[in-house]
């Protein structure tokens, strides 16, 4: 079953809406609380990344009896060095963004910790695609 959410860049007040909706769905589907938590933490992190860095993005969530697959596709500046971005503590977020409690450089590493598979691809000046998968 597929669920689609749109995310606007720059609107931190709405960051987390998609994660909350997905959380409710996973709970209704009786997914184990620990998996719900991990998935939502990863998704939230990725959703905030779009809000903080991109102009807009689309989140597609696909739930099957075997796995939860989430693809976040954004239009934005892209990530020049993905390997570097995967290192803990690295962040390009502006000071303003950091003050709001976002973008402390936990983004991608934290996502990786909370999902079974992670794939990030990016084109500079174009956008980033984050694909994550968690097995049920």
């Amino acid at each position, binding site marked *: *079953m597929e669920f689609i959410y749109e995310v606007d860049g720059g609107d931190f007040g709405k960051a*987390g809406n998609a*994660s*909350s909706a997905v*959380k*409710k*769905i996973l*709970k*209704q*589907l*009786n*997914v184990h*609380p*620990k998996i*719900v*938590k991990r998935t*939502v*933490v990863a998704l*939230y*992190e990725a959703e905030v990344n779009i809000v903080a860095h991109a102009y807009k993005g689309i989140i597609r969530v696909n*739930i099957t*009896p075997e796995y939860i697959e989430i693809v976040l596709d954004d239009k934005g500046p892209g990530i020049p060095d993905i390997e570097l971005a995967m290192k803990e503590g690295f962040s390009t977020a502006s000071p303003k963004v950091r003050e709001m*409690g976002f973008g402390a450089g936990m983004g991608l590493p934290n996502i990786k910790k909370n999902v079974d598979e992670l794939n990030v691809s990016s084109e500079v000046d174009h956008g980033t695609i984050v694909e994550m998968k968690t097995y*049920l």
Partner: protein
Amino acid sequence: MIQIYHALKVDKDICYGCTHCMNVCPTDAVRISDGKALILKKRCIDCGECLKACPVDAIYVEQDDLDNIFEYQCRIALVPAVFTGQFPTYVSEEEIFSMMKELGFTHVFQAEFMVDVINELMDEQMKINNEKPLISTFCPSVMRLIQVRFPALIDHIASVKPPVDASAAFYRKMLQNQGVPDCQIGIFYVTPCAAKIAAIKGWSEDQGAVINGVINMRYLYNKLYAKIKNNKDRDRELPILPHLSSKAIQWSLTRGEADNMKGRCLAVDEIHNVIEFLERLENDEIPTVDYLELRACDQGCAGGVLLHGNRFMTVDRMKRRAYQLESVAGDVDWKEYAEIIEDRNLFVSKIDPLPTISLDQDFQEALKKMERIRNLMCYLPGIDCGACGSPGCQALAEDIVQKKANLSNCVFLQRMMEKNKKLSSEHAIRIIERTWGRDRLDKDCKKIGAKNEGM
């Protein structure tokens, strides 16, 4: 299967299915069926929002008969500080408590007596608990909320019991040590809310119930206040009872715990605020906090549904009492009780998850049901009017897949079906009657707001 106990009941004779309760319930636990409110047991968290919203007092809190106390020789009233906080300040604790003795209690003890011990145990636990923040066990409505809606946060919950449970266990032990046989000890808690009743009645045997019954605070207040009003001699002797510390008096109010725990402590009160906060906590959106005090009621227990007075006045009175006590050193000699206090079993227990929002235990089935819900939502108009007897379109769709309602319950779809000749108007009326009762659409000038109201 765990037996879920609820203290909130609907008086079917009074309820006229007005939907106020259904619209305010924070967990979507109310439906209207046959013209009456129906509380879904699995979802209800006993917060009492429905009781507050009911315009005709059809929702009530089940209570024990006061006469039950006479089954015991040693009859203890366990009274929380908010109880005295409701009386005007010229009425002394001495007077209140001695009047309770006239009602038949042999002892009056204070529910917050164990606050200092609990505070210490909780600080200790905070040091060793892996999950941050540690969540207070104080409010049973919040505990139920976490069990049913936020099971992933269960490990955050402290295992230290709330002061009332601990105090009850303590007094029981104390009386036993004094030679009173256990079967003669009856402890009755004077409750400010339905949630405490549910928590106490929901105790299973093996957890060892230490509280034998509950007394509705509003009922007791009315009884005592009448007695006090008619009482000529104001001077009363306080039945043997240690004074509470200023901290203990304020413990049940908002920030009562948070201000006394070590580290970065946050207090959130009122059930909707609590839900919003837990949602965020679950997303890992909350920066490191060490301790979380959560209360279902606005202003903490001063906002309990069974309190008589205005909650802000109650808080003010309690703060005044606490202020007066600040200079007096607490007169409890803890050394005297060291032996009892060392018995950790009296103060510690664990809470299990009880997730209930899933559509089905089986994932495949749940997935199918969700698919159907999304389909149904294409047809439902999204007006969320509640005229179907469910709190909104989404809730109706969920009820339909759970076989508890039909698509034709939606009044707008009924019109469509009638237009397309899929439903006869007689049948449509029967459907409405099933939800709203047989005589619901008859003229009734005695209903609230109608011309003969109250006649």
